[in-house]
């Protein structure tokens, strides 16, 4: 016998439990409850519809779209250069990766080269961004398991990295720093000291995190064997990044499809784990923090000199002092500022390895001054699909740790 919704809600409200239950079947006690969209452990406006048998999750259905603002459509109304201000807002914990994927696609269409220094700056900044993003993943994973200190430590270090971004780009997030052809401004004078401070800090601090969490019995209890999926499942669902690597599949676009400074053969390894569970994902992320720290160090050491962006006057604004001397520079400046540059007709796909997996942009140009279509393959969107299979059969408490391990960014999911 099914109790009507009104009846049940009335009963629960009388119990002081609130109206979270959508539906309840008294014969087998299955219950459909609504979790989110505003729930602290859902990492944003993620809503889950759970079918429960007591504490066991029979089905978990993510309901998304609360943050949908039609960014792909918005891109079509911007110039090629200005669309970066839109794409950078998608995955807001890793904004540089959005910009990088978009820039790589547009560079392919424009058929332009990025000078070595531009490539190295991009890779340096994105590896720093990987650190800051994984620190959030580490912090929220700990927080959701009741280890609040992990959140404090993760965010403390992230703050230093964001300060570095502010120093370089002027902004802490949504930086709008990369552009087709390079980066819009050279590194500031004192960058090397600041960057080395971060390297030294992360080397030391990552050991502390490991001492704090990695062998913690409560943490192990709540993450080992939880939310596991196999490599086949992950590949079929399109899951990438730490989720796929935690299943034992060795996949990293920085090595397989090198872009920017990775074309020069930087030395790093791709961490993998075998179990495919929440703990394996945590281990992979911690190992990636180590690898990225190494990469940042190499990039600082090998930072070439020269231009930081492609200086073709047709696609980049002329230096400020040239405007005083050259009429041509003024004309280029005016043209670029009022209508932007045009991109030859064509279409292509370019992808980067973001902290969450493969982040790709499929850009189409019809020869105009704005993208005809800009489709973004966001890893959060694709990875979130794997939450259902991961949660099935587990407990509600396990679901919380599973969400944290997927590390979805709703800005990227909803775009």
């Amino acid at each position: 016998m099914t109790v009507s919704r009104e009846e049940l809600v009335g009963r629960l409200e009388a119990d002081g439990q609130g109206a979270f239950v959508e539906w309840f079947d008294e014969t087998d006690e299955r219950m459909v409850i609504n979790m989110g969209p505003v729930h602290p452990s859902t990492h944003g406006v993620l809503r889950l519809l759970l079918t429960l048998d007591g504490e066991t999750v029979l089905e978990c259905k993510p309901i998304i779209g609360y943050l949908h603002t039609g960014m792909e459509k918005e891109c079509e109304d911007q110039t090629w250069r200005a669309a970066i201000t839109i794409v950078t807002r998608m995955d807001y914990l890793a904004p540089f990766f959005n910009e990088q994927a978009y820039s790589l696609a547009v560079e392919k269409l424009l058929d332009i080269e990025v000078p070595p220094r531009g490539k190295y700056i991009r890779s340096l900044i994105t590896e720093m961004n990987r650190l800051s993003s994984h620190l959030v993943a580490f912090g929220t994973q700990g927080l959701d398991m009741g280890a609040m200190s992990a959140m404090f430590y993760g965010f403390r270090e992230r703050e230093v990295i964001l300060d570095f971004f502010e120093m370089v780009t002027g902004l802490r997030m949504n930086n709008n720093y990369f552009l087709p052809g390079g980066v819009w401004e050279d590194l500031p004078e004192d960058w090397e000291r600041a960057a080395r401070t971060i390297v030294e800090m992360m080397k030391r601090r990552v050991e502390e995190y490991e001492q704090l969490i990695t062998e913690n019995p409560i943490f192990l209890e709540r993450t080992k064997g939880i939310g596991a999926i196999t490599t086949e499942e992950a590949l079929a669902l399109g899951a990438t990044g730490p989720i796929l690597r935690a299943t034992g599949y060795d996949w990293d676009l920085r090595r397989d499809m090198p872009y920017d400074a990775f074309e020069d053969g930087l030395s790093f390894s791709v961490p993998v784990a075998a179990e495919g569970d929440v703990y394996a994902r945590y281990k992979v992320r911690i190992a990636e923090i180590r690898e990225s720290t190494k990469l940042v160090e190499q990039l600082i050491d090998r930072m070439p000199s020269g231009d930081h962006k492609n200086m073709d006057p047709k696609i980049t604004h002329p230096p400020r002092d040239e405007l005083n001397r050259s009429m041509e520079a003024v004309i280029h400046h005016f043209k670029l500022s009022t209508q932007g540059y045009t991109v030859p007709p064509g279409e292509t796909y370019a992808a980067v390895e973001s902290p969450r997996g493969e982040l790709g942009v499929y850009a189409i140009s019809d020869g105009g001054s704005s993208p005809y279509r800009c489709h973004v393959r966001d890893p959060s969107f694709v990875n979130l699909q794997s939450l259902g299979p991961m949660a099935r059969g587990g407990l509600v408490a396990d679901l919380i740790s599973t969400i944290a391990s997927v590390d979805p960014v709703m800005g990227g999911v909803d775009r």
Partner: protein
Amino acid sequence: MPVTERVVGQQALDRVTAELGSLVGDARVNFDQIDVTCTPGNLVEVVAKLREAAGIEARFFTFLSAVDRTAFGGEERPDTERGTPLEVLVHLYSPDHATHINIHVPVDQADPRCPSITSVFGGALWAERECAEMFGIDFTDHPNLTNLYLPEDFEGNPLRKAFKLPTRMVKPWPGAKDPEEAAGGGRG
């Protein structure tokens, strides 16, 4: 696993056309990626073959979306090649060979239909739902083709070119452009 044998460009195109034969129409190399065109009826077979075929093994489903090319070239450049007005776009990747394959599937503009590829790649479930609401394409035999992002009572398909964003529309200048046209000869 790391790339075992890098197959891109002409070599990849040869392998793809040899495998698919008459299942696909136009096939070409596009920025080191392979572009093929196929009809909606052949899509599921093409995708399944690309996944299994030895030497290609495009086992990774990257994304599925659509493109509305009706405004291609814009009003100023009507000569630009328009391509198909509406097409579904499937991107597959081969992790072993680093081959990217774009499958273009032209669909009918007025009554767009395309079979679902979820039987081959489960990950296409959400992508097809997104594509369905954004472009109004009916993915037949999709298990649950409900709106993913948009509210149920939303009207229109936002990513179609016919769907204009009101805030972005160019509005005519409200006043008169010439002083003569204005009431009172421009002095009123």
